[in-house]
């Protein structure tokens, strides 16, 4: 066992942290007020990130990425958690799923995404298909040698800036002993494709500058060349490339919790009431003790899950544990930190209320806490035949 970071990892952490402090944090309040990231600001962050060689650092070197290990990338994501989700979106981490691109798709989608020339988004969720992905109503039907997409996606992050979107649609149904089961296929859809529209989504309590969009497909015609992976192979593509996103949520939560905790700790040491720093009161000091303990626990859980992925060890259960615990830890830490600030914690002069609101979505997206518990419990019980 060795729990230290390498010299390179220390430097990666320090560079990303400085970047977030200097290039991201000063713009957070404005972005929160506007509800979106001004194009020039997003472009500037993207340009600086490319110059630093961090853009698409989650991609392998042979496609122009930095080839970071899952552990290294988890450290990057953890530090990005100290910044606003809306702004760190431009510290580009294209969806790993683009690695499934083949032939001409590589030149058209994968490589420009890695170079930061094109932004992507991922569209899976529908109004009637959240955790139940197979329940999706979006369909792609074969017609005259093309695919014709119809349906609606919602809660799609990053779509307002995306040049293209990876969209999942049902391409058939299998009759099984447990009833009908939909077959899914992933498609690459360019912004501007006739029949495809990106509309503003809902006003969310979390990550206000990071809007969600509604995507509609109305007889949107796509040639075979737009199929990502193989026809009816949507689940394989998902399983191959998307299981890691839970890990990025966990890492982001840890980073966010550290920033929140740092502010609460400082305040507890500096704020005086009844003639002493409020941190001296056990009512404030003990929550701080609980917080740092939980943050450390989530941190190690997350890093060890990432390490397992790098080692090729089974990690599905561990990734779910990290996502579950880190997101629930963040809810407790943001709440307890806000409490230390008292009334001022609720005011938007300080970022505490924003951290508290932002934390809420982490227990919902990329698999709810309930779905994570389901994955963990099935992983434990299935081998026992239960």
């Amino acid at each position, binding site marked *: 066992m060795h729990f230290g970071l390498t*010299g*390179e990892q*220390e*430097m*990666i952490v*320090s*560079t990303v942290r*400085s*970047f977030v402090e200097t290039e991201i944090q000063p713009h957070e309040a404005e972005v929160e007020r506007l509800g979106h990231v001004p194009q020039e600001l997003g472009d500037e962050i993207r340009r600086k990130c490319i*110059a*630093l*060689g*961090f853009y698409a*650092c989650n991609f392998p070197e042979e496609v122009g990425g*930095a080839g970071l290990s899952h552990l290294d990338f988890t450290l990057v994501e953890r530090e990005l958690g100290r910044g606003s989700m809306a702004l760190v979106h431009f510290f580009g981490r294209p969806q790993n799923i683009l690695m499934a691109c083949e032939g001409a798709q590589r030149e058209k989608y994968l490589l420009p995404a890695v170079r930061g020339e094109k932004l992507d988004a991922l569209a899976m969720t529908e109004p009637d298909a959240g955790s139940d992905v197979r329940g999706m109503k979006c369909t792609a039907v074969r017609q005259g040698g093309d695919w014709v997409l119809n349906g609606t996606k919602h809660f799609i992050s990053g779509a307002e800036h995306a040049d293209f979107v990876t969209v999942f649609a049902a391409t058939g149904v299998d009759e099984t002993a447990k009833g009908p089961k939909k077959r899914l296929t992933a498609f690459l859809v360019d912004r501007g494709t006739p029949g495809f529209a990106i509309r503003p989504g809902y006003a969310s309590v979390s990550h206000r500058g990071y809007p969600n969009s509604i995507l509609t497909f109305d007889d949107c015609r796509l040639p075979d060349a737009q199929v990502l992976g193989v026809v009816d192979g949507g689940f394989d593509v998902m399983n191959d490339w998307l299981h890691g996103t839970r890990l990025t949520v966990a890492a982001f939560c840890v980073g966010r919790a550290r920033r929140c905790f740092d502010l609460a700790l400082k305040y507890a040491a500096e704020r005086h009431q009844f003639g002493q720093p409020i941190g001296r009161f056990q009512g404030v000091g003990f929550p701080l003790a609980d917080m740092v303990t939980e943050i450390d626990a989530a941190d190690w859980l997350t890093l060890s899950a990432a390490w397992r992925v790098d080692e090729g060890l089974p990690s599905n259960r561990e990734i779910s544990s990290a996502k579950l615990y880190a997101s629930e830890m963040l809810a407790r830490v943001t709440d307890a930190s806000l409490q230390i600030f008292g009334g001022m914690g609720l005011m938007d002069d300080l970022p505490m209320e924003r951290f508290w609101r932002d934390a809420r979505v982490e227990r919902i997206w990329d698999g709810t806490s309930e779905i994570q518990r389901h994955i963990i419990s099935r992983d434990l019980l299935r081998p026992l035949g239960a």
Partner: protein
Amino acid sequence: MKVLVPVKRVIDYNVKVRVKADGSGVDLANVKMSMNPFDEIAVEEAIRLKEAGKAEEVIAVSIGVKQAQETLRTALAMGADRAILIVATDDVHTDIEPLAVAKLLKAVIDEEQPGLVLCGKQAIDNDMNATGQMLAALTGWSQATFASEVKIEGDHAIVTREVDGGLQTIKVTMPAIVSVDLRLNEPRYASLPNIMKAKKKPLEEKTPADYGVDVAPRLQVVKTTEPETRKAGVMVRDVDTLVAKLKEAGAI
């Protein structure tokens, strides 16, 4: 031309320093350490000179504990070409004094023959502001301190200095020792490719004995104390009371 940049491992500027219970100094155990911010500015300037074609090689050198390796790796990740570490102590609380550092740097200069030494004007731990000047005395080279702008023109360096009450521009003959001030530049972040390359760049490890320099302390720290804490202020009812209080204090 080679540029030599001495870098010091110091307590991170974000850390709230604490005086040791026995008053012998500042507690450095388990405290985050980083490159002295002024030295970071010196490294940045050296790399810029290289990028502008005015320098061929940037050599970072650090003197202190073995852990200063990390400080040198940071310099290498920023873009320095190679590094020299002189391990002069194994105790993190032992500060190598400016004269000993200057003598060691003089020995490195004799070996490496740089055309320019860029150093931080002072280290933020002890704020001595002495090494650069001592080094200039030992080498007999020109000295330009507190640089806010450095231009290399042939055999000369045109250096703008931040002095009390304004800026002074001087022209010095090379080789020269230039100590840099805060406003000279804004140091870059280490890029990811450079971070990855840093490990492969040469880092030579030496001891003071290799250079025949005695680093035994000549100064004795008598006492270290925390700055006096500010006394609590007084809340006043209204402007009239405030004015009266200020008059009472003789402030207006």
